[in-house]
């Protein structure tokens, strides 16, 4: 069993209303100094040891992310 983390983020040039909402709300709560927030998704997968990187990449691209508007990164973590 391996643990895999996939982070999916809206592409830089794409509007990110969620991140924007967070960034706007922070100063109202007295938190200064946060200039930019982007919000995306974080997936944690448990995968069998024979699942190779290529498969993981395809899972991320086809399922976890929407390549039209999102970027993603896949990494294995020791568990």
């Amino acid at each position, binding site marked *: 069993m391996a643990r895999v983390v996939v982070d999916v983020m*809206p*592409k830089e*040039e*794409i*509007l*990110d*209303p969620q991140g*924007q*909402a967070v960034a706007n709300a922070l100063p109202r709560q007295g938190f200064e100094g946060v200039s930019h927030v982007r919000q995306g998704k974080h997936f944690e997968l448990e995968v069998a040891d024979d699942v190779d990187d290529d498969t993981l990449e395809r899972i991320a691209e086809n399922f976890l992310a*929407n390549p*039209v*508007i999102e970027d993603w990164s896949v990494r294995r973590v020791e568990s």
Partner: protein
Amino acid sequence: MTETTHDTVTSPERVDSTEYAARTPELAQPYRELGLAEDEYQRIRRILGRRPTEAELAMYSVMWSEHCSYKSSKVHLRYFGETTTEEMRARMLAGIGENAGVIDIGDGWAVTFKVESHNHPSYVEPHQGAATGVGGIVRDIMAMGARPVAVADPLRFGPAEAADTARVLPGVVEGIGGYGNCLGLPNIGGEVVFDESYARNPLVNAMCVGVLKSDELQLAHASGTGNKIVLFGARTGLDGIGGVSVLASESFSGDETGSGRKKLPSVQVGDPFTEKVLIECCLELYRSGLVVGVQDLGGAGLSCATSELASAGDGGMWIDLDAVPLRAEGMTPAEILSSESQERMCAVVRPCDVEAFMEVCRKWDVTATVIGEVTDDENLRVDWRGERVVDVPPRTVADEGPVYQRPVRRPAEQDRLVADDPGTLARPGDAGELRETLLRMAASPNLCSREWVTSQYDHYVRGNTVLAQPSDGGVLRIDEQSGRGIAVATDCNARYTRLDPYQGARLALAEAYRNVSVTGSKPVAVTNCLNFGSAEDPGVMWQFQQAVRGLADGAAELGIPVTGGNVSFYNQTGGDPILPTPVVGVLGVIDDVARRIPTGIGAAPGEALLLLGETHDEFGGSEWSRVVHGHLGGTPPRVDLSREKLLGEILALGARDGLVSAAHDLSEGGLAQGLVEMALIGETGARVVLPEDADPFVWLFSESAGRAVVSVPRGEELRFTELCSARGLPCTKIGVVDTESRSLDIQGVGELPLTELRRAWEGTLPALFG
């Protein structure tokens, strides 16, 4: 890396100014990549007396696109104007040519409504494409000075079982719901139709309805020298400028990875919260009298808003692009002008009102910036970093684009299609086969319950929805005191239109009209969204021309005006166009919404079920021929609009006098389907007996137009049938409502328990889409 045959000019070091353009006439420009034809480009050069700057080229290319300029449809659309009489115009406060048509509905109220297509973007990115389609049409309605009060969504998808439909449909529904629900606009109607021809070209049409006091109309024009141009709402980013990115030099926009902006998706992401706040902000600005003119930013962004405002006004306009609040770094003038960032509006404001305007925007936390002013000369001028990048006569951009008389030819295969009569198809013979056919049809994707879709839409918000899904027409209360309200319905049977585009458009109109009528409302106006294949295909242009004529002639026969519409060409995959799909929306008025007629039966025991209208053996383009035989051929049902009008009048009288407790129009699937729906929606059984001499198959499944089933309280049966016979509307008693029974019992077919019908009708979409 793409091959560039043109020179790029704008870079961090150099601006393609009008002055530079005048000095470099020979510079090659990528007009073809921007979708302009050679002669169109030459015409721009003639207008300006020089080559256009990159910013000007971007502006002309988007504004002269089919979508913005209507260059292929204009010559046909004129027919709407030509067939609209003064009498039809009487209630119309704004018509074709404005952002949306406006109709006076009495008591000082006016209603505006319009449909827009967002077909292609919804195929590329279903969720965001559909969401921003809703956002766009809502801003159109706001630009009339109205409060948006409802949306509806006519949709077309590829085959229900196709894998790609499982990608597109749920995304589209989520997008429409996600955006509309968050705006607080009840969704009160629409369509879901499946057909092979939409497989790689779904149709996502969105309708919005708005309400205003009849003296509050806002028109989009920029007048009054010295008045300020204010851009407000979201910041401007690199959204939807995929096409224009050919203008950006690599050095200017390329990022570290060297991919540059050429890979920019032409997808926009919607931010419904920003739009919701923008709506409230706009309405407060209107109420406070702080706006001289207003325009929404939709396709073609600032290019469109500025040139249209200036073109409709009495002076020129000056814009300072450096003032535009940006979301991305290093945007070029062409990009800023073409950006399709959502949730933005543009207003013309008197200088003395600017501070008050800004105050309202601050209250709503809406970014607002003065970006220019109305000038006393003729031209639209745009400056960037101290240099003039645009200097054009605005009318040449907005109104005087190219106009084409495209070749029109009735396709040779049309005769073969019409000759392929469904009369030869095998029909169900005995009761068992009829029963099986009925159940199979009720479960078929085009006839089954739409609940899987509509339960994802809020239809309660704002507390004025009197009828919504499942109901033939959506009905909204407008005035809480008087109960005055409106009804809307959209319809189109594209199979009929394929067989006969002229009659098909009239049938779409007839059905939408009837759907409004069965709610007890009086139809008063028409809008449309004409979805067709390539304008360069003479066969498609024939379909288009015929459909426009059919719709215009039909509206004239009914005496209600076409107040506006939308054209979407190039809906095709390779050489195969979609079925011609002229979606027709009809608006109706009802004096007191408490009198509206619902669809479901069961108000009281023993009510009579009456079939209004005549049933003929008509199966061309029918749902039966599709579901059972996969067949499309013959001629569509005949349409008699004077009969539709009569039916409408009788229903309105019946509603007013309480003679009708339920009504449902008959269309796809015929009487059988109509009865199934009335029973299931009302959760009440009925016993149906067809006339002695009736061919049960024809009576149950024919799609003859001009028909409805009504449920009439016992004590009113005589009065109602006499009303029909006095006015010459055929009326046949076909059964009684049975509040005790839990089944639909049709003589000659057998008993159909409601549970079995419900399983068939409601199971299909959840099984397909989860």
